[in-house]
């Protein structure tokens, strides 16, 4: 090059050499940092990540709520003693408590006292009920160790041997129904999540391909100045990874804000009828560490997907350059 400089061809072609200014210090990125297609891609990624994270959070919430319903109802069993001729109800209740407490896996057994029983029946029989006037069955609530439940068959056999009018309800029917409902709910949630993730994948893939198509001239220029395919793909992959991380992080952060907002609303409205209703259904509206880990996973997956799509699209573009006709 030095030799050429010494033989400058034409004074008219090489004017004012003194006016040379230094090159810019910061090297411009090979792929333009800002473009309309790039901004649209960030927006698409942010929106789809936000919706995916919300869906994921909702599914997590439903799954945890379903588990809570299931465990709460399975935590207790009920012994019911029906009145019978010659039966001393109080003694029978004491016997039931004693027998139940003797079983391994029973944490506690308590009698539902007269006042509580009257309250239970109040909606049907009205207030001021005298239990002695009616043959009302009495209940013993047995709290059980969920990890090591008692042998209900043996308990049932022993109780009916001692107290023929007693029966044990381990809530199995309810638990089975709730388990079935919870499984159905979680399955529907998982299906919705799968659809949402599929929509996210497709949106991100097509938006990335669209953004790269807008930069096709850069791929061609890099190709004819002798850049190898790996270099070109790496430049685009890096650019689109940064773009995707920005969009996905924004979407994920927005979803986390929504979850935090719900959790705050739930805790600050505790004891109000609306919150009680919501809490009864969904617990305390917190998605828990698994939910937040899921959000992080969605963000990372979307970023990785975008980078991989850009890589593959660039390589395909390069492979097709040789088949492209000349534009006149």
């Amino acid at each position, binding site marked *: 090059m030095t030799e*050429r400089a010494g033989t400058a061809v034409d004074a008219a072609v090489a004017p004012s050499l003194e*006016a040379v200014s230094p*090159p810019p210090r910061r090297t411009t990125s090979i792929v333009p940092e800002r473009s309309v297609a790039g901004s649209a891609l960030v927006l698409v990624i942010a929106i789809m990540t936000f919706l995916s994270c919300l869906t994921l959070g909702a599914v997590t919430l439903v799954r945890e709520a379903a588990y809570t319903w299931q465990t709460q109802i399975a935590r207790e069993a009920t012994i019911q003693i029906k009145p019978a001729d010659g039966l001393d109800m109080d003694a029978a209740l004491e016997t039931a408590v004693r027998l139940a407490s003797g079983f391994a896996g029973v944490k506690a057994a308590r009698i539902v006292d007269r006042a509580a029983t009257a309250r239970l029946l109040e909606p049907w029989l009205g207030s001021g009920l005298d239990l002695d006037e009616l043959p009302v069955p009495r209940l013993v609530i047995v709290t059980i160790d969920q990890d090591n439940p008692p042998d209900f068959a043996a308990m049932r056999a022993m109780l009916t041997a001692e107290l023929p009018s007693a029966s044990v309800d381990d809530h199995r029917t309810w638990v089975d129904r709730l388990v079935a409902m919870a499984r159905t709910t979680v399955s529907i949630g998982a299906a919705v999540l799968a659809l949402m993730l599929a929509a996210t994948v497709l949106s991100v893939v097509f938006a990335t391909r669209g953004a790269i198509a807008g930069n096709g001239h850069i791929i061609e220029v890099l190709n004819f100045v002798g850049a190898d395919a790996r270099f070109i793909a790496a430049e685009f992959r890096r650019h689109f990874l940064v773009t995707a991380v920005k969009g996905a992080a924004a979407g994920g952060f927005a979803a986390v804000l929504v979850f935090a907002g719900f959790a705050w609303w739930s805790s600050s409205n505790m004891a109000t009828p609306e919150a009680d209703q919501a809490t009864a259904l969904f617990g305390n509206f917190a998605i828990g560490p698994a939910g937040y880990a899921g959000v992080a996973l969605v963000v990372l997956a979307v970023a990785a997907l975008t980078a991989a799509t850009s890589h593959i699209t660039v390589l395909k573009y390069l492979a097709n350059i040789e088949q492209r006709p000349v534009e006149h």
Partner: protein
Amino acid sequence: MIRFENVGLRYGMGPEILRDISFQVPQGSFQFLSGPSGAGKTTLLRLLFLSLKPTRGLITVFGKDRARVSRKELPLLRRRMGVVFQDFRLLDHMTTYENVALPLRVRGRDEASYRGDVHELLKWVGLGDRMNALPPVLSGGEKQRAAIARALIEQPEILLADEPTGNVDPPLARRLLRLFLELNRLGTAVVIATHDLSLMEQVDARRMILSGGRLEIHD
């Protein structure tokens, strides 16, 4: 350096655009490639530049059979060639300096190692004071010279130029021609595709005329 033997090309199932093209570009030679618009000059240049594969015939580039050149080898061969496109193909978001330095940058070279060379070359083509300008603010002639500088920065063994004077006025066209001649004098083979007869009349060089898909050579 480059040899074509009975080369033919068609796009897909379309008609044959180039038929039985045979010629060679010797080292340090200077030639014009001419013919009417749409005759296939740009297509022939793309074949020379290895950005198209012929549908038949044999192309040998730097002693290698084009059909046997792998995709990995292509960039290495292209680095031995310089190309100037009719539409310049400068990257609008990069300065003139960065556009010209691009071939060196993509090779992973450290900027400090080539900064001086790029400055010298830009001065040589008369763009010393336009280094930090972006292509959209350059005139047609300046863009053309920037494109030429980019093609020359790696000191190619052959320069392929597609209508390099198509966007400039006659005085600048003459100056660019002198620049190509000087480059040729320094040892680079030059192929200029043009349909500008007045430009060709200024130099006593080999003329390759494309017409109806066939090539006539006038030495």
